[in-house]
């Protein structure tokens, strides 16, 4: 009953050699695994990495998600450019109205006409912004194919128009 290591006892350090081979194999396997992992993640994410670095990454998302043709995309891009300025203005109006309400709330200790007016202004600006946004969403959807437009409206409804509770939410009595 002799073990293989005794059989090759002619070698100076058979156990050391075996250990070295085992470690080398282990390292080679790990290196191969890391290499495969890196290659898969590098090439598998290359496309989206280039898209996300794009300045108009949001629009590229729109183009791909809804399979827009070049003509559709150009029209939507023009709409988006025209809307961007309006959106910046609305953003400023919202911030101003919120700041005015904040200041009025801090200045008073009861609901005064000043606070009422500030609240009305916030509501007015909010309504104006939502209407403007909805009009833009409808305009964009009109440039798409019917199925894509339906899908687009569905997503926008969830993300923007109804950002709070869905209409099916049960309300406690």
């Amino acid at each position, binding site marked *: 009953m002799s073990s293989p290591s005794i059989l090759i006892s002619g070698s100076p350090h058979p156990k050391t050699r075996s250990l070295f081979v085992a470690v080398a*194999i282990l390292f080679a396997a790990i290196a191969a*695994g890391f290499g495969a992992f*890196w290659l*898969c*993640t590098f090439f598998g994410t290359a496309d989206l990495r280039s*898209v996300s670095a794009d300045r108009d990454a949001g629009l*590229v998302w729109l183009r791909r998600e809804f399979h827009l043709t070049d003509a559709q995309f150009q029209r939507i891009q023009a709409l*988006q450019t025209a809307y961007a300025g309006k959106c910046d203005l609305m953003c400023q109006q*919202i*911030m101003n109205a919120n700041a005015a309400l904040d200041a009025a709330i801090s200045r008073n200790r009861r609901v005064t006409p000043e606070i009422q007016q500030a609240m009305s202004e916030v509501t007015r600006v909010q309504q104006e912004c939502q209407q403007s946004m909805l009009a833009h969403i409808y305009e964009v959807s009109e440039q798409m194919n019917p199925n894509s437009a339906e899908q687009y409206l569905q997503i926008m409804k969830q993300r923007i128009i109804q950002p709070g509770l869905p209409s099916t939410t049960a309300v406690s009595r």
Partner: protein
Amino acid sequence: MREAANVDATWLTWLRSRLISATRVSVPRLALAAIAVGLLIGTTTGVVEASRWNSTTWNRLEAKYVQSIDPYQRIPSS
């Protein structure tokens, strides 16, 4: 009893011979098998990780588009 013991011994002999033969693989074959396993694990986890990253990034791009048309999502929260 003796017959049962013989059967057990045959079993053990057979099992031992299988185990020993299983360990008698050549070094290149063992290395190849280990590298193949490493490649398989690396590829699988790489594909899963790339898929997860793509999914997260796609959602981020969607949020970016939504942010570009919704002034309320542009305002930094205090």
